[in-house]
């Protein structure tokens, strides 16, 4: 049995592969559910009803998907240019704390329509600034950004921890470490009344469309793809490598920072150190599931959110650990990698 590189990739295969990958992951996870002693189909049914069965569940799933879309985009755009931003988690938190700092006091006098976009920008800039550090180290000293961006996550989270236990601590929180809340008119309008679903979802979907067009239609998109695929060839063709990577880093870090800002303004209103259940890291999985396609990120984020939200319901009803959601998402990443492989190679006997 041999593997041969495919010279042509049939469109049907490219479209079908993520679907088959998810199906395969569900089958594999099904074995674990069966091992835990529950009927598999019923368990998956519970996950679906848990995620979409009621109005509350559906809005909750979409609320969860929103930050995943943004961090997924952050990873997708960076990875396309072979810039390995593993620091979305830290950028997310820095964006969040920035919004909490400005939105609770300094800028809170501004009217809502001015304040909200301004806070979005502030969060994005905070994320950008954090991503520019590893990029600078890479361009200046050839330091691997995988390591530096990853380690900065811990720096950022500890910094946030310090701020919410120090200068930004909410005096009315009974001693709990949490930031002061942002002004009421800085909170995002709800998409659906009496739910947590906010207009951040629209922002995230719009961001995916914009990134898609940016990559497919613009000079910057072409150049960043060239820089990622073959830096030497890109330089020969006059692509300004450093400048292109700076732009990519700004977009990537900015999206992750924006995710943090939107999470604060849309859901909680203040920052705690459990604001993100690993959105930054999950974004990497979302991006890989989407094969780095910005529009695919929307679907991948929805899938991931469905698993996480639905698993809670399933766990309660059937006594299976919620970890099954983590396992399923992780399995789907693995099966997706296999699927990507088979869109590029075929088996020959």
């Amino acid at each position, binding site marked *: *049995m*041999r593997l*041969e590189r495919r*010279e042509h990739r049939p469109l049907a295969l490219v479209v079908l592969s993520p679907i088959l990958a998810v199906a395969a992951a569900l089958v594999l996870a099904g074995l674990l559910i069966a091992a835990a002693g529950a009927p598999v189909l019923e368990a998956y049914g519970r996950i679906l009803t848990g995620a979409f069965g009621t109005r509350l569940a559906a809005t909750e799933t979409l609320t969860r998907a929103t930050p995943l879309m943004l961090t997924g985009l952050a990873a997708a755009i960076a990875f396309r240019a072979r810039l390995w931003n593993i620091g979305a988690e830290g950028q997310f938190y820095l964006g969040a704390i920035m919004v909490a700092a400005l939105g609770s006091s300094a800028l809170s006098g501004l009217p809502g329509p001015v304040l909200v976009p301004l806070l979005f920008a502030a969060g994005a800039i905070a994320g950008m600034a954090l991503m520019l550090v590893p990029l600078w180290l890479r361009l200046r000293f050839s330091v691997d950004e995988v390591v530096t961006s990853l380690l900065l996550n811990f720096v950022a989270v500890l910094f946030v921890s310090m701020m919410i236990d120090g200068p930004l601590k909410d005096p009315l929180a009974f001693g709990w470490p949490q930031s002061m809340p942002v002004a009421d008119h800085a909170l995002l309008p709800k998409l659906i009344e009496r739910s947590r679903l906010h207009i951040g979802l629209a922002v995230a979907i719009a961001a995916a469309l914009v990134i898609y067009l940016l990559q497919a*239609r*613009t*000079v*910057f*998109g*072409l*150049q960043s*793809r*060239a820089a990622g*695929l*073959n830096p*030497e*060839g*890109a*330089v*020969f*063709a*006059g*692509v300004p490598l450093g400048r292109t990577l700076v732009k990519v880093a700004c977009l990537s870090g900015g999206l992750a920072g924006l995710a943090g800002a939107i999470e604060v303004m849309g859901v909680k209103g203040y920052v705690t150190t459990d604001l993100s259940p690993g959105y930054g890291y999950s974004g990497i999985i979302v991006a890989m599931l989407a094969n780095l396609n910005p529009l695919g990120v929307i679907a991948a984020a929805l899938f991931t959110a469905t698993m996480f939200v639905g698993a809670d319901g399933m766990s309660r009803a059937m006594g299976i650990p919620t970890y099954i959601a983590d396992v399923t998402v992780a399995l789907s990443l693995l099966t997706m990698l296999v699927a990507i492989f088979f869109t590029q190679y075929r088996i*020959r*006997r």
Partner: protein
Amino acid sequence: MTTETTESTAEPVLALSHISKRFGPIVANDDISIALGRGELLALLGENGAGKTTLMSILFGHYTPDAGTVRVDGVELPHGRPRAAIKAGVGMVHQHFSLAPNLTVLENVMTGTEPLWSLRSRKGAARRKLAAIAERFGLSVDPDARLGDLSVGEQQRVEILKALYNDARILILDEPTAVLTNIEAERLFRTLREMARQGLSLIFISHKLDEVMAAADRIVVLRGGRVAAERRAAETNKAELAELMVGHRVTRPTRAPAEPGATVFQASRLTVSSGGVERLKAIDFFLREGETLGIIGVSGNGQTTLSQLMGGLAAPSGGEMRLFGEPVAALDVDDLVQAGVGRIPEDRHRQGAIGEMAIWENAVLERIRQPLFSRRGIVNRSAGQAFAATIIEEFDVRGGTPTSRTRLLSGGNMQKLILGRNLYRRPRILIAAQPTRGLDEGAVAAVHARILEARQAGTAVLLISEDLDEVMGLADRIQAIVKGRLSAPIAAEDADPRRLGLMMSGDWAAGEGNTGEGHPHAS
């Protein structure tokens, strides 16, 4: 029809019989039969895409043939089992080496020969065996050197050693000289001859007529997936082989005498350093419209730096440059492209094109900022695709459409694409670095014709090449590059292989040096 194999010696060590292989609609091998005798050095000659590599991959078990058999010493090998081929004594030296750069020579050679879970590694025994083999065939390599630190020629020696270490009696070499300098290639063929003399049987794949004629006992010519002919080296000549290989007579283009115009580029006492080493030392040359300057030299004497400098990728540390009469401190890619300087890079796969991108994207990438191809940062895809379609049409790029991936093009067609994107807009200067390296005869002729055509139309051409025939065929003036220095130019009429050979060996360097004679006086 198939040429039936003639038995060259009594019992063939290796016999390929009626091998056929299709990839989708493409017939890569069509009923091919070849026999290899003991102690024989056989050349498999053919253009790119003639089916040579496919055939050898089948022999080595990388591909499964649709029909046909492979026999070693009369015993049929199971299809698609490299391990069986290795066990039967077949060794393969790939064009792109399959070695690990972070391991030592010895470790590389031993990889795959030991059980994975064994606790002790038998390094001592391996070292002795390797030394014995190296001694026997004169393949000296330091067993403890890290592979990544070795030159390409030495890495190839390690590949050969690895095959021999696995007790190969039949050795297949896929385009072994593609990555070598002339001197390394000569050395390789001496080794191969010695191996044949000691009873090994060898097949080497090539599309270079000279080396096939010089090294092989017997030559099998493949064309379009079939055996086109089989000749003993002693009974054929280059012209016949070339004709058999491409299917028609190859003629090098003839050229009209140059009528040089204005000087468009001039370098005076130019020095370029990289990594603290002076790669180019106070060189002088100039380019004139409608004239080709050929830079000839043995690989590794500063050609790479020169093509980087002229391509806008390296800046001089001393001396002066004038582009179109204006002094410039350094050449910049965008400025060069804007000013109408066409550039053909030394390495077409790494620099000339981005394989995973579409052909049209590669066609427009260096000019993407120009209004024709983008406006306010938005790419004009239809204009780009139309441009690529024009190039494909006019420069006869085969095997791709504007939207197909560039990686799928053969080397020759990729080079035609690169030529096309440069020549289509009638550049004032064309920098051509090793423009035909690794191409087959048909593609070489096409590239040469285009370069001559450009020079005829008034382009100033800088041709940097290691191929004597190419430089003598195309250049009007010739300078040799030796250890980062340039000789004074000589006129093409005064050049013959002997004189150029002397220049390339650096005879001038000691005495007269680069005195700068031959400058255009008062341009």
